[in-house]
């Protein structure tokens, strides 16, 4: 299958912000897709009844799961912000190199800020379970 020429390989292709953000968009997309399993777990537990919901709530409040939830929330905000960046590109806007870099840094900053905002809010709420 590999008799045809291959494009430059990862080891010799110098990563740039734009290419790293591009592959991160895919990686976060796949991670979020897998993460829907957790969302479904929560939702079906709520549909099952009070006992099932309490059990699921316990699992989702575990420390290890919490770390995963923080990672997922960053992945979500990243995919959301970078997705909006892609939608502007689809409309033909922001392709200039300088602007592509500026929007890239803006995506990283806003995704991280939104993640921090969410978790500061959640963890400082009285009786916080999450």
């Amino acid at each position: 299958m590999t008799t045809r020429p291959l494009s430059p390989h990862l080891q010799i292709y110098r990563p740039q912000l734009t290419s790293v953000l591009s592959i991160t968009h895919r990686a976060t997309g796949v991670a979020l897709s897998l993460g829907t399993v957790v969302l479904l777990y929560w939702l079906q537990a709520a549909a099952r009844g009070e006992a099932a919901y309490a059990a699921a709530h316990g699992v989702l409040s575990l420390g290890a799961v919490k770390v995963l939830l923080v990672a997922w929330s960053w992945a979500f905000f990243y995919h959301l912000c970078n997705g909006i960046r892609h939608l502007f590109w689809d409309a033909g806007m922001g392709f200039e190199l300088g602007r592509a870099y500026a929007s890239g840094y803006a995506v990283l900053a806003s995704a991280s800020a939104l993640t921090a905002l969410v978790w500061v809010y959640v963890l400082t709420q009285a009786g916080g379970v999450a």
Partner: protein
Amino acid sequence: MSLRSDLGRVKGLGSAKAGVHHWRLQRLTALALVPLSLWFVASLMCVFKASHAEVVQWVAQPHVTVLLLALSIALFWHLTLGVQVVIEDYVRTPWKQVVGQVLLRAGAGLGGLLAVVSILKISLGLN
């Protein structure tokens, strides 16, 4: 009957016009998911701490039910389109490609159905 030349007709018709179907749906579902997912995450921040009864009460409101159903459909649709391309790009063995695409659709289809049924069950007070 048309008096246009074959070349003129082909130029006028362009492509089969189905080539952008996948691309367009990916963008449309993305556009829908921007407000829906932001609303859902904001709601989840409040709802996750609530009791089961409160969660049920929240889901059962008609506008919440509708938005949750719309979110579920857009989410699993968007996810299928996205992961489909990832499998197309990185899985090189033909039979694994087919198996991957089938499993993706089976998983996303079942996941989407589970979400929709769970939401409806809560909303219609069947639990």
